[in-house]
């Protein structure tokens, strides 16, 4: 029993401090204050507050799960959630106290006492173990002085500047407003509110663990949907306003924010739907699988038709702004599918994919521009140049592949990274300035003209991207099951053995790089036509990293995964402007989380699923 208790205590403290650190960190980088700008439900809750509650809630649930798995009673589980919520609030409260004028002496005291406490903490075991007294005192002094130098200089800064903002720029009034739930003037009330809310969220997390599965899923679904609709209020509003009249819209939304009544309705409806699905979903699924194969085919066909219909109608359903986002997503889907040939199929880690994108964009810009740099007077149209851009990108892919054919793994990655940089430098160079405009880039790129109509809106450009993506998708599905695809997979597995099978590995790798480059060129050309101008700044290493990340997050070597990855990684920052400042922070967090919890990606290819299952099985029950 005692063992159990101390173990639970450790879980609670670890999880609680982690989520406390999370809140402190997101506050210190300004995320909480930025997210507070976005209201989820009018006058009820903001996204920043959701973040403040989500952390103790999730960690309360995690801690409750671990304690519960250890076989503790309900009371212990609830106590765990309660404690986690409380501990989560502590770091923020300490920082609040340090930051306030009234209690700043606490900070100064801490900074002055800390060196001696720390020195004693480290020196005590030496004294206890009976080390030479001179040695113990010497160590104590050395540690105190070392840490003291740091803390005393901090203390000096605060006395001069007066508050923490001189070090942590985002620990400012906005932050205090959010974490105290608008009680900046009554700091103690604010701290109390924060504590109560945090504890309540932690407790709710542990309650969540105790209640039965069906209501749990229903609640999860209900709150999840409401939260998403609220957070993406702007997007939802843009979609709805295409299809609803103005008065209805005004009842649902105030500007971009969900009003209270519709939010409550949404919560109730989605919870009920979630409940019904949790209760009867399994039956529906078994009903579907037990249907006659012919019936099932019909159902699948109907599903595909509806999906195709939505894809075709999308610009009308979502309006201009979101169509623009859809085009950007589509451009990245194109690049993702292309890069996947090199990375997913042939196992060639190419970090210079931006090269192909830049080549495609500049080819289209120079050949079609009607500005000063376009010396061809618009003789060439978009449609004539697309194949040129494709071939040029393939040629670039081929040229850059030749020198790296013999490299493998990390070395290949570094070399290709270098090529990406070379292209960036070439684009901005004075040497090529007469041709592609150096830092000013190429302007006045005309929009594509189709059957006499200028495709100038994103709604129209969307169809170009759609067709290009579908063609690429078709080609990569075919490649996946072809002799060529097989030869790449063989090389990915073992180059020497692939050679022993009679595969000309050099040729196969060249082909992989070249084909993979093709869609990058098309994506670049579409991008140039969409934006109308081409600057060197658009072609940084971050393009390559974005494309690589969306492949990994979506699921390597999985075509549907790549589409989902593009929607999540490219679409989300576009839709939620608050996110875009923290885009790379979130990318990093997302990638780390994916690697730990779901290394196979959102929608893994069948092969990888096999593999992960086999690995898990091997871990659970070691083979003979």
């Amino acid at each position, binding site marked *: 029993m005692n063992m159990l208790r101390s173990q639970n205590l450790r879980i609670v403290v670890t999880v609680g401090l982690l989520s406390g650190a999370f809140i402190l960190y997101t506050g210190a980088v300004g995320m909480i204050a930025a997210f507070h700008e976005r209201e989820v439900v009018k006058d009820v809750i903001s996204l920043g507050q959701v973040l403040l509650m989500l952390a103790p809630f999730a960690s309360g649930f995690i801690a409750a799960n671990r304690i519960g798995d250890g076989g503790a009673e309900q009371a212990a589980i609830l106590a765990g959630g309660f404690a986690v919520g409380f501990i989560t609030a502590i770091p923020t409260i300490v920082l609040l106290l340090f930051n306030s004028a009234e209690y700043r002496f606490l900070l100064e005291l801490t900074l002055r006492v800390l060196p001696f406490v720390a020195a004693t903490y480290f020196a005590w075991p030496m004294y206890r173990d009976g080390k030479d007294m001179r040695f113990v005192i010497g160590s104590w002094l050395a540690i105190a002085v070392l840490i003291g130098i740091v803390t005393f200089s901090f203390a000096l800064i605060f006395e001069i500047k007066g508050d923490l903002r001189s070090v942590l720029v985002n620990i400012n009034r906005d932050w205090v407003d959010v974490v105290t739930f608008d009680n900046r003037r009554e700091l103690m009330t604010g701290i109390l509110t924060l504590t109560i809310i945090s504890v309540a969220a932690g407790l709710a997390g542990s309650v969540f663990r105790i209640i039965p599965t069906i209501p749990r899923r229903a609640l999860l679904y209900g709150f999840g949907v409401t939260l998403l609709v609220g957070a993406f209020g702007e997007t939802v509003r843009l979609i709805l306003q295409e299809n609803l009249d103005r008065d209805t819209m005004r009842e649902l939304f105030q500007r971009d924010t969900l009003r209270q009544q519709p939010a409550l309705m949404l919560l109730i409806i989605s919870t009920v739907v979630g409940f019904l699905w949790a209760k009867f979903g399994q039956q529906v699924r078994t009903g579907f699988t037990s249907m006659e194969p012919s019936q099932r085919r019909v159902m699948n066909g109907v599903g595909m038709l509806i999906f195709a219909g939505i894809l075709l109608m999308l610009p009308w359903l979502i309006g201009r702004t979101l169509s623009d986002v859809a085009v950007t997503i589509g451009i990245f889907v194109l690049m993702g599918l292309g890069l996947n040939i090199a990375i997913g199929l042939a196992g060639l880690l190419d970090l210079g994919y931006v090269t192909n994108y830049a080549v495609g964009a500049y080819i289209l810009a120079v050949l079609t521009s009607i500005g000063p740099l376009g010396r061809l007077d618009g003789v060439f149209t978009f449609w004539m140049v697309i194949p040129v851009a494709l071939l040029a990108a393939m040629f670039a892919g081929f040229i850059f592949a030749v020198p790296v054919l013999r490299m493998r793994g990390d070395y290949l990655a570094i070399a290709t990274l270098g090529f990406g940089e070379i292209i960036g430098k070439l684009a901005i160079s004075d040497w090529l300035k007469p041709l592609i405009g150096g830092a000013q880039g190429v302007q006045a790129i005309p929009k594509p003209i189709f059957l006499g109509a200028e495709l100038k809106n994103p709604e129209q450009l969307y169809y170009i991207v759609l067709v290009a993506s579908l063609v690429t998708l078709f080609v990569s599905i075919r490649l996946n099951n072809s*002799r060529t695809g*097989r*030869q790449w*997979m*063989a090389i*990915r*597995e*073992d180059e*020497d*053995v*692939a*050679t*022993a*099978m*009679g*595969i*000309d*590995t050099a040729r196969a790798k060249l082909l992989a790089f070249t084909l993979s480059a093709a869609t990058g060129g098309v994506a670049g050309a579409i991008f140039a036509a969409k934006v109308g101008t081409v600057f060197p700044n658009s072609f940084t290493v971050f393009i390559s990293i974005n494309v690589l990340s969306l492949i990994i997050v979506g699921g390597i070597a999985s075509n549907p995964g790549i589409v989902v990855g593009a929607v999540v990684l490219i679409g989300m920052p576009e839709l939620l402007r608050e996110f875009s400042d923290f885009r790379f922070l979130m990318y990093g967090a997302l990638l780390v989380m994916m690697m730990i919890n779901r290394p196979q990606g959102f929608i893994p290819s069948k*092969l990888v699923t*096999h*593999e992960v299952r*086999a690995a898990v099985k091997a871990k659970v029950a070691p083979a003979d």
Partner: protein
Amino acid sequence: MGLLEVSDIHTYYGNIHALKGVSFEVDSGEIIALIGSNGAGKTTTLRTISGLMEPREGQVIYDGEDISSARADTLVSKGISMVPEGRGVFAKLTVEENLDMGAYTRRDSGIKDDLKGMYGLFPRLQERRRQLAGTLSGGEQQMLAIARALMSQPRLLLLDEPSMGLAPVLVDGVFDTIQRIAGEGVTILLVEQNAHMALQIADRGYVLQSGEVAISDTAENLQQNETVQKTYLGID
């Protein structure tokens, strides 16, 4: 004339002189064993014949043609197939996909029939044809590697340490299979540390010692040879 003639080949790893003039001959339909201790140059000899390494001096003549500097992938369609050391199956492809890879150089219509033939020879592989090759046991992987090599319809099969890492029971099975394959008319060049097993099924054998052929004789005589018995068969 022999199917394969290796005459006085010298192969280097950088500056290390690994093969110091190895010569031997393999006639059509024979099983030839190359035996020797670790580092004697057995695998290097196979890698040189199969084109993964190029000899600095000497010649490899296959079917009357000099293949000393031919690339490895071109030799497969000429009828030389290798089962690499450590099996080297494509772990993340299924068994059937592995077999398909073996027939990579072929474009005739007989591949399907050959696949059936392989499943006839190795019923275990048929049971597991949709399984990932990496999930097979060691013995099954060795069977798969051999079957895959046979899918290219070789005249000469190079086997590198087929018994490595296998339980003794499985080793017997593997050598039975090799004998059966030879019975179908495939010439076999076998590199083995397990000299005992190799000499039991071989027609002739060569003993390699620090990059040179030390002894060459029929398998029967080698089994009786005192030096071979002492050094490689563990008989005092």
